[in-house]
C-alpha cells in the first residue's frame, strides 16, 4: 500500500526524531513490562507463601447455631481459625466417603483431604502441653501441606500408633523419633503414641502445636466411629477459592465452607492496592508514551506539509492522508514496544541476576509470561494509532493551495 511506503519513508527521513521517540516508547514499555513482572512475581510469591502449602478451602462440620445464641455472639470480632471452629459443638460427618470421592472427581480441586480435628494435651513427666491434634490420610494431606519433603527427622508415616510432631513442639518436649508420648483429650480419653518423625512447616504456630495422626487414630481418640469433622481442599486457581467455597456451601450444606480469602482479607486488600497502584503507574507511563508519539507526529505534520500538499494535488484522498499518519503512529508504537520488550526482558533478567538476598538467592521468582509482551506490543500499537488521530486529522485538513502558494 502506498500509504505504508510514505509512512515508512517519513519515519526513515525523520532519523533523529524517529530514533528518539522510539527510545522513549521503548523505555516506557520496558518499565511497563518490568513493573508487571515485578509486581506479578512479588504477589505470586506472597500468595504462594500464604496458601501454597495450606488448604484453600476448609469445610467444618459445625452445628448451625440456634438463633438465640447468634445474638450474644460478637460476629465482628469472631475469628475463623481452625482452632476456634473445632472447639465449637462438633457434629461429626458420618457419610463423608461419597462426598470426598465426588470432590476428588472435580477438576478444579487439586487436593482433597478428610480431617479429624481436635484439641488435646501431651503429658511427659510433669509437663503437659496443649496441642492441636489433626488426623488425616497422610497421602492426601501431603498433597496440601507438602509434608513428606518437610520431615526434618525421622520417617514420614503415621501408621498404627505412630505420630508426627512439629519441630518446636518436639524441642519443647525434648523428644526425638522413636520416643513415646502420651496424648489425652479434654474428654479424658488418652493413648500412647510413638514419635515417627518431626516436621517443619514454616509457621511457628503450627510447628509448636500440631500433632499429626492417621485418620483412624484420631477417629478412635475422639470417638468419632468412622466420622470426620472437616474436609480440606486445594484449588487450581487460588483466587477462585472463595467462589468455589460459595458453591460448596450450596451443594454440601452439611459443612460450613471457608476460603483462604476470608481468613486473609488484609493480605488481599494489600495485594489489590498494590496492583492498583501498579496499574496507575503503568497507565501514566502509557499516557506519557502516547503524548510523546502525538507531539512528534504533530511536528511531523508541519514538517511534511509540502509533501502532503503535493500528494493531495496528485490525487490522494483525505482518508489516505490520515492513514499515512495513523500508520506512522502504529509503526512507532509497534517498533518502539518491540525494542521495549527486549529492554524490559533485560531489566527483569538484570534484577533477577543482581538483586539477591544475603544468601545469594533471588528475592522471589519472577515469571515473564509471553502474554505480557503481546499485551504491551498490542497496547503500544493501539496507543500509537490513538496518538496519531489528532495529527492525522490535521494533516487531512491541510489546505493544498496554502502549501503550494507559500513554496
Amino acid at each position, binding site marked *: 500500500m*502506498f500509504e505504508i511506503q510514505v509512512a515508512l519513508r517519513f519515519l526513515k527521513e525523520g532519523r533523529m526524531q524517529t530514533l528518539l521517540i522510539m527510545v522513549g516508547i521503548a523505555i516506557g514499555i520496558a518499565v511497563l513490562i518490568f513493573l508487571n513482572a515485578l509486581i506479578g512475581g512479588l504477589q505470586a510469591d506472597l500468595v504462594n507463601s500464604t496458601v501454597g502449602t495450606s488448604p484453600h478451602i476448609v469445610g467444618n462440620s459445625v452445628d448451625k447455631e440456634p438463633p438465640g445464641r447468634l445474638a450474644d455472639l460478637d460476629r465482628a470480632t469472631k475469628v475463623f481459625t481452625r482452632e476456634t471452629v473445632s472447639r465449637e459443638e462438633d457434629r461429626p460427618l458420618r457419610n463423608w466417603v461419597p462426598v470426598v470421592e465426588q470432590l476428588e472427581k472435580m477438576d478444579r480441586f487439586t487436593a482433597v483431604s478428610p480431617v479429624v480435628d481436635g484439641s488435646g494435651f501431651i503429658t511427659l513427666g510433669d509437663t503437659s502441653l496443649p496441642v492441636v491434634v489433626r488426623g488425616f490420610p497422610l497421602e492426601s494431606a501431603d498433597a496440601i501441606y507438602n509434608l513428606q519433603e518437610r520431615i526434618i527427622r525421622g520417617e514420614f508415616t503415621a501408621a498404627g500408633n505412630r505420630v508426627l510432631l512439629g519441630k518446636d513442639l518436639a524441642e519443647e518436649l525434648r523428644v526425638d523419633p522413636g520416643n513415646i508420648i502420651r496424648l489425652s483429650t479434654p474428654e479424658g480419653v488418652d493413648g500412647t503414641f510413638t514419635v515417627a518423625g518431626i516436621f517443619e512447616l514454616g509457621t511457628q504456630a503450627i510447628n509448636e502445636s500440631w500433632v499429626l495422626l492417621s485418620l483412624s487414630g484420631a477417629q478412635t481418640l475422639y470417638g468419632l466411629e468412622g466420622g470426620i469433622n472437616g474436609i480440606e481442599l486445594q484449588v487450581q486457581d487460588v483466587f477462585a477459592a472463595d467462589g468455589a467455597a460459595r458453591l460448596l456451601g450450596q451443594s454440601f450444606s452439611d459443612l460450613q465452607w471457608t476460603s483462604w480469602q476470608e481468613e486473609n482479607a488484609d493480605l488481599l486488600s494489600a495485594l489489590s492496592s498494590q496492583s492498583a497502584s501498579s496499574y496507575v503507574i503503568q497507565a501514566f507511563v502509557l499516557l506519557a508514551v502516547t503524548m510523546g508519539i502525538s507531539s512528534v507526529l504533530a511536528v511531523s505534520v508541519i514538517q511534511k506539509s509540502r509533501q502532503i500538499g503535493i500528494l493531495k494535488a496528485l490525487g490522494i484522498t483525505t482518508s489516505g492522508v490520515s492513514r499515512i499518519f495513523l500508520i506512522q503512529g502504529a509503526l512507532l508504537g509497534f517498533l518502539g514496544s518491540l525494542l521495549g520488550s527486549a529492554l524490559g526482558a533485560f531489566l527483569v533478567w538484570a534484577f533477577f541476576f543482581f538483586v539477591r538476598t544475603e544468601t545469594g538467592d533471588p528475592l522471589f521468582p519472577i515469571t515473564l509470561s509471553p502474554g505480557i509482551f503481546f499485551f504491551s506490543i498490542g497496547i503500544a500499537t493501539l496507543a500509537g494509532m490513538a496518538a496519531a488521530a489528532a495529527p492525522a486529522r490535521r494533516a487531512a485538513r491541510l489546505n493544498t493551495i496554502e502549501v503550494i502558494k507559500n513554496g
Partner: protein
Amino acid sequence: MASQIELKNITKVYGTAVKTIVLKGIDLSFQAGEYSAIIGQSGSGKSTLLNIISTLDRPTDGTVLVDEKDLTTFNDDQLARFRNETLGFIFQFHYLLPEFNALENVLIPYWLAHGKPPTETVELAKELLDRVGVADRMYNKSTDLSGGQQQRIAIARALVNRPQIILADEPTGSLDSETTIAVNRLLREINEEYKTTFIVVTHDRHIAAECDRVIELVDGRIDRDYLTEGLEMEERWKDLGPAQCFRIQEMAQECQHADSKGTEEE
C-alpha cells in the same frame, strides 16, 4: 465541438468579514490540445483561476465542466480521483518528495491510486524520464538534483497517468533563464506529441508569447483573450503590453522564434 474545459460565470470571494472578490464572473472554455497562457499582474486572480480549474479550490459561484461533467458537484474524494486520472500538475517549486528517488516520484500518481506499479508502468516512467532528459538521474534522491532536473522530473510525474490536461503554475518561475527556455520547449513538445491540453499561468511574457492562446486577467476579469497564430513575434510582443523587459527579448531571440529585427537597444 464541445469544449474540454468550460467555466461558467466563475466567482471567487475570499474572507467572510472583509470580502475580497478575486474573480468576478469568468466565462472561459478550452479546447482539447490547446496550449494556453493565463497572464496578469499579481493579484489579478490568475492563480486562483488555475486553482479552480485544477479543483484544488472551489468557486464561490459558477460551474466548472470538464468533458461535460460538473466538477462543482463532486465531493472531495471524487475530486481527488478526478485530479489523479485527468490532470497533471507542474508547480513553480517542483515539489518532488525528498523521501523518494526520481523514478519513485514519477510513479507516485499511479502508485497512490492503484498500488504498486506494474512493470509496464515502471517502463513508461523510465521512458518519460528519458524523454525529459534525466534518465541518468533515475535513482537519485531529488535533493541531489538541480532545480532544472527536478522540474524535468516533475514534468515526467505530471505525464505518468497520461492526463488529458496539464496545469502549470509558473513552471519556470524558479529556474534560470537557460533552463527556462529548455523547459518551455519541452512542454511545448509534449503538448504536440501527446496532444495534451496545457494551461500555463505565468508572468513570464516569453512563455506567453509562445502559446497558442493568451488570456490576460485584470482585476478578476478577462481583459483580453486572443490566439497568437498568424501574429508576427513583434506583434505578439506589442500585444503583450508595455511591460516587457529587454532580457526576455534576448531570450526570445535565442529561442529561434525571435524576430531578427527585434529591438536591441542595450
